[in-house]
């Protein structure tokens, strides 16, 4: 009985999801015994042409992390979708757009202009930009197209399952592998993590306020935080109530608030809007000036409430930014 084929691939990613798979530690030897890894650029020398040579559907499962920003990433997503029985969006970037999706607040031109011309450390007197087609003495290397919009994986191809987190935890990853290899899979489209808010597993749960009234919002560097008390009770924004559990409340264990990387539960359409509306409803002030002063404690709403989920939010990107000819 041949071993099932498994592929790992990364798009607009940082490699942290790869590290999480490696953090299965001794369990990874068991995984390697049970499956045949056919693509894993961080650790193995298989090339794209090796994947293209496989039959369609020959890969049992592909765990794809990273957001989609370039035409090459679109092509690999489409190729791996075709070659895989199950395509899993692994990690916050593939599921929601992740931190790279914060670029959806800016135009493509702003990014290229700064990175290739205006940045203080750039030396580029000819103002050369990356070119999709380049020819020199008959040689034609090429680069992919850099799109106008960052997208999550399911905004490009059909996705079977999601493993959330920035990055996911080794425990969730182990559970996902076991579910796949044993055939114990939930309905297609499921997120492979509990469908409950983070507060449920946070050690500070007992002090979570039922009625909270904000006269101000503090920022993480502005006080010494009590290591046992709910951050919201201390006046600090914690995304826990709007975020799916599954990480063991890792960041509160590090004495810092949750920033929302597991995304929302299934009952919430837009994670940032949910948290924004909940906090806004609890602002103590009733006058314009008081409200404005309170909200001064939230200088960056997009970065706070949509840090990982901008691509999958209702608005997806800052409005009125240009788009490409295919909409992206």
């Amino acid at each position, binding site marked *: 009985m041949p071993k099932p084929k498994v592929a790992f691939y990364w798009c607009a990613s940082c490699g942290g999801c790869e590290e999480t798979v490696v953090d299965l530690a001794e369990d990874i030897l068991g995984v390697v015994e049970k499956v045949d890894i056919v693509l894993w650029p*961080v650790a193995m020398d298989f090339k794209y042409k090796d994947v293209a*040579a496989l039959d369609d559907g020959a890969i049992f499962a592909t765990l794809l992390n990273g957001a989609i920003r370039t035409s090459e990433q679109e092509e690999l997503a489409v190729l791996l979708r075709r070659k895989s029985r199950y395509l899993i969006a692994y990690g916050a970037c593939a599921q929601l757009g992740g931190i790279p999706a914060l670029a959806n607040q800016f135009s493509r031109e702003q*990014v290229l202009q700064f990175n290739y011309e205006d940045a203080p450390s750039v030396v580029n007197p000819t103002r050369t930009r990356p070119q999709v087609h380049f020819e020199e003495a008959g040689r034609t290397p090429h680069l992919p197209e850099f799109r106008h919009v960052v997208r999550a994986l399911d905004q490009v191809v059909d996705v079977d399952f999601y493993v959330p987190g920035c990055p996911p935890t080794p425990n969730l990853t182990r559970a996902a592998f076991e579910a796949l290899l044993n055939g114990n899979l939930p309905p297609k489209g499921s997120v492979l993590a509990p469908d409950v808010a983070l507060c449920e597993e946070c050690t500070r749960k007992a002090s979570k306020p039922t009625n909270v009234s904000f006269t101000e919002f503090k920022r993480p560097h502005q006080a010494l935080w009590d290591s046992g008390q709910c951050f919201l009770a201390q006046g600090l924004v914690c995304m826990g109530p709007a975020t799916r559990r599954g*990480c063991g409340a890792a960041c509160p264990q590090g004495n810092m608030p949750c920033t929302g990387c597991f995304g929302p539960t299934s009952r919430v359409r837009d994670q940032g809007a949910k948290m924004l509306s909940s906090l806004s409803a609890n602002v103590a002030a009733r006058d314009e000036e008081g409200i404005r002063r309170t909200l001064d404690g939230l200088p960056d709403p997009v970065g706070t409430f949509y840090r990982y989920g901008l691509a999958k939010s209702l608005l997806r990107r800052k409005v009125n930014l240009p788009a490409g000819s295919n909409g992206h």
Partner: protein
Amino acid sequence: MESAVQQTFNQGNLRANAAYRAARRQVTIDPITRLEGHGKIDIYLDERGDVARAYLQVPELRGFEVFSLGRPAEDMPQITSRICGVCPTAHHMASTKCLDDLYQVEPTSAGRKIRELVYNTFVLEDHALHFYVLGGPDFIVGPEAPPAERNIVGVIGKVGLEAGKRVISTRKRLRELIAYFGGKVVHPVLGLPGGVSKPLAPADLPEFQQLAKEAVAFAEWTKTRSTSGSSPPTPTLTAPATWAWWTRKTA
């Protein structure tokens, strides 16, 4: 398309591409592997088969420099760590030191020591990753080895299963130490201007010290004896670390 037909088509397609490249005397490495990041190399050969020109292409851009604009300064250690998930601690610490400079504060003595402990721990486990998993295969297994062996499994074949298990268990404990202070090891959260978010409980110190000694001993063995056929030094810490809540298996 029927599977046999699809397979024939795929094979034919690939042969045609390879023949085209050979006729054009072009070798393409796509993607480059065993590193963090994306890259492609196109090598063009002349009539004698010597390299006429080679192009390294980096087909990715995320734009951290621009999408960090307008963010609160104290968020930057956690945003910049997403530049790289293999070395997030490096970005996190550099960013934290920028916060010290921005607020014109010196870290507290304990804060500084905790930062150094976390950072040195990261350097050790990161270098172990590079030696055994990323760059090591090129030196230990060799560039002439078949592609399917140029990886950690091939390295274990050369240094022995015991050493392989020790790499895995040492890195696991070191990364749990980082998670103790940083909440999680990939994209830790400890950095604040003037210090860190979490103290070290004195009761946990002896275990950290023992772990440090054993990790350094393992690094020494890696450097001097790993390809000689000898076994790595035996660890005394065998039970799960008392603080290892992050990787503990939940019911």
